[in-house]
């Protein structure tokens, strides 16, 4: 019991942060729906769940997200293998490139996709524009990188010998994959799939842009109910439904993601030369890469197109405020704001993320303790799965008075972004900390090191590189964050995605070109950050 008390004490700080920045606002917003004229009236909310439209929306969300998750996993696995196990030339660059979609603003990607799939686009003959297929394709586009990275890193650190033992026992490569490799990768695959599912199920812009208005997901429906129809009861009902499903999913994922063998050694197998038998994986990777690059290429070409010819005019215009003064600040200034905001979001996410990682990875001494830890682990994933609209409005109505008068704070935007980046940081640091043999800590303690000193001398030396890697992810995620930011950003200091959105929403040919150019700048900034992270990343550790 004392250990659990100590654990809770240690967990208090991050739990408090998440409590204030997440639980309080969401609860506040949901309560708006549950209280009618100051009276608690849950019945009316639950009635909403009986509406046929709600069923349709929920089912649509589940099947599109499920399909997209499945596809992202199926497409991501060969790429994860090829990019993390094979000595493919330029694979660091490819890995960085694959992450770019993950941070591009949805509105830009939506336009790029529609230029490709739209009636007049090169892929228009497929007739996919405005169909669920387009939505699923968009979701896969955004999330395949999560699978490639998470599973790839696990694959990198996978001991190759069981597979070789199986091969020596007569298993063909395909049988080795099916009977040995995939079971060993299951925790990583399940982890990646659950993150992807959460991202898909809460996707907003991409569903609206690619699906047209015919299709609604729980997330878009919450938006519609809250801002357009102002039916807070129904919105609350859907939010609660969302939370219940997300919690259930996280619990399921935690079960499937069996606890790793603590005695298992983390190995890093050297990449090996490409063989002929790797052809399917390499071809699949190239296809995935091609599918990723096509919309991005559309963006780049668009940004370089000036009138009837080509030129850099759109890029030169980034130092201006656009045609007809579309912006209050030049795009370059927005980039600076983005970078500054990302710095703040990064340190916040790292600080809290490091605490959470330490808490969830220390060895449990009892079943109760392990439960507490795994509950905490899931708790910090929650922000990924809950409606940004609910959270955003919740901020306004709950953090509006002292001592929590945060809604006017310039730090609110980085705080919200840090919340989004937090699961990425935890997913990066926790495996590394979990991989440290607990006996090292015990050895340090037996030599007279205090808990703090043990952390400093045992954990920190191992974890500082992944910390840098995690900061890269957090930084990139913050650079690309749009949902929460657009809601909270203040006019005099918009971030780059907000500016892009604004440019694209204002008439004037130059503005459109500038929006594309600014997106390319954002993509390049992201890729550069990711490449830097690639250099710092300890191979075999540090996934999402």
């Amino acid at each position, binding site marked *: 019991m004392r250990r659990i008390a100590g654990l809770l004490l240690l967990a208090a700080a991050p739990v408090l942060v998440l409590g204030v920045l997440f639980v309080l606002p969401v609860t506040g917003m949901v309560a708006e729906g549950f209280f009618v004229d100051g009276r608690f009236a849950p019945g009316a909310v639950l009635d909403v769940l009986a509406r046929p439209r709600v069923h349709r929306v929920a089912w649509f969300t589940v099947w599109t997200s499920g399909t997209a998750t499945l596809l992202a996993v199926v497409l991501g696995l060969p790429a994860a293998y090829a990019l993390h196990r094979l000595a493919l030339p330029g694979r660091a660059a490819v890995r960085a490139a694959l992450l770019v979609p993950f941070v591009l603003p949805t509105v830009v990607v939506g336009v790029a996709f529609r230029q490709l799939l739209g009636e007049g686009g090169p892929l228009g003959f497929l007739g996919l524009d405005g169909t669920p297929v387009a939505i699923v394709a968009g979701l896969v586009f955004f999330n395949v990188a999560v699978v490639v990275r998470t599973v790839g890193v696990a694959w990198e650190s996978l001991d190759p010998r069981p597979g070789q033992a199986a*091969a020596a026992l007569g298993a*063909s490569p395909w049988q080795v994959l099916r*009977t040995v490799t995939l079971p060993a990768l299951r925790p990583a695959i399940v982890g990646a799939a659950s993150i992807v599912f959460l991202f898909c199920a809460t996707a907003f812009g991409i569903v609206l842009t690619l699906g047209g208005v015919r299709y609604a997901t729980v997330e878009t429906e919450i938006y519609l109910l809250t801002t357009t129809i102002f039916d807070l009861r129904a919105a609350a009902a859907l939010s609660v439904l969302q939370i219940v499903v997300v919690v259930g999913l996280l619990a399921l994922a935690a079960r499937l993601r069996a606890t790793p063998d603590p005695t298992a050694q983390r190995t890093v197998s050297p990449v090996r030369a490409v063989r002929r*038998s790797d052809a399917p994986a390499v071809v699949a990777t190239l296809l995935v890469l091609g599918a990723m690059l096509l919309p991005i290429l559309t963006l780049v070409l668009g940004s370089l197109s000036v009138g009837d010819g080509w030129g850099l005019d759109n890029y030169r215009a980034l130092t201006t405020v656009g045609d007809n003064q579309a912006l209050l600040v030049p795009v370059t200034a927005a980039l600076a704001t983005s970078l500054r905001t990302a710095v703040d979001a990064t340190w916040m996410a790292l600080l809290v993320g490091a605490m959470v990682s330490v808490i969830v990875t220390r060895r449990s001494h009892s079943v109760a303790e392990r439960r507490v830890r795994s509950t905490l682990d899931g708790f910090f994933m929650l922000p990924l799965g809950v409606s940004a609209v609910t959270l955003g409005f919740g901020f306004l109505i709950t953090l509006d008075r002292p001592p929590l008068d945060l809604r006017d704070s310039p730090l609110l935007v980085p705080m919200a972004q840090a919340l989004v980046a937090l699961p990425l940081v935890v997913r990066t640091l926790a495996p590394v900390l979990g991989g440290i043999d607990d006996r090292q800590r015990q050895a340090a303690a037996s030599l007279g090191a205090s808990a703090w000193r043990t952390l400093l001398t045992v954990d920190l030396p191992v974890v500082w590189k992944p910390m840098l890697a995690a900061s890269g992810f957090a930084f990139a995620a913050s650079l690309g964050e749009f949902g929460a930011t657009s809601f909270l950003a203040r006019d005099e200091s918009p971030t780059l995605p907000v500016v892009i959105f604004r440019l694209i929403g204002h008439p004037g040919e130059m503005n459109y070109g500038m929006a594309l150019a600014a997106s390319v700048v954002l993509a390049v900034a992201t890729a550069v950050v990711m490449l830097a992270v690639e250099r710092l990343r300890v191979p075999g550790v540090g996934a999402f």
Partner: protein
Amino acid sequence: MLQLTDVTVRYGDTAAVDEVTLALEPGQVLAVLGPSGCGKSTLLRAVAGLEPLTSGSVSWAGADLVGVPTHKRGFALMFQDGQLFAHLTVARNVAYALRLRRTPSARVATRVRELLDLVGLAGYDDRLPGTLSGGERQRVALARALAVEPRLILLDEPLSALDATLRERLAGDLREILHAAGTTALLVTHDHDEAFALADRLAVMRAGRVVQQGAIDEVWREPVDEETALFLGYARVVRGDAAARVLASGGLSPAYAVALRRSALVVDPAGDLRAVVESARVTPEVVRLVVAAEGIGPVDAVAPLGSRVSPGDEVALRVDVTRLAVLAIAAGG
């Protein structure tokens, strides 16, 4: 049957395995003995088809195996630490290769029972590898490797992860099992005890090359050089006059160098070598001494249990000729 001809495996500029030529007859157990990093594991992996050859050839029954993937070679590989599939039960692990071959399940069950009996783990069917001790895991790994009666079993330090007593016991079992199954085996190890316990033939490997090979007692009796001798468990090599002195005392013809085991010199009042005891240590079987022998220098010696010898004592020593080896090297060699 298994024939390695000038097998070379290079990593960049370094040759991990350098023109190794070896042959292995059916039913034989060949141990490749060498220090860590000598290339013996790479050699094993090359035979298994896990490591591409830079040059040379591996053939089985006269057929070159180049281009034959691991899973089609019909060899079984047993790793140092077993490499059991952690997500499968013991029975499933053992049955792994059988299931790959779509063996009928009744047949699988019988065979698994047989094999678990053979390795002394009857009743362990439903245990998960995580709950087994090191020795049990190795037995399961062995059963798994034997399941489909491979034409060759490759053993990578099968016992070195185990503690001393367990190692001894399992070594005996393993030898028996291998012989009972009539299995041809190639074993690599850095532990000469393991090699002696299991193998019929021995190849000593150093820096990628096989420096000596032959029947196990042959190699044992005539190590090719000082390093080999020391690696085979000889304690010291004495040279020149000191060597002549030892050999003369043992009634052997003179040679430039001789390798001595720790028990090559025995305290015996009838001995003709004189020495001063420097240290003495009692072990369960003998008293082990370090002595400064006249004309020889510091060497190891043994005295029967119960002998009262202490540092500073002067003792007489005789030479036990079964415990030394004359090295075929000349002065300056």
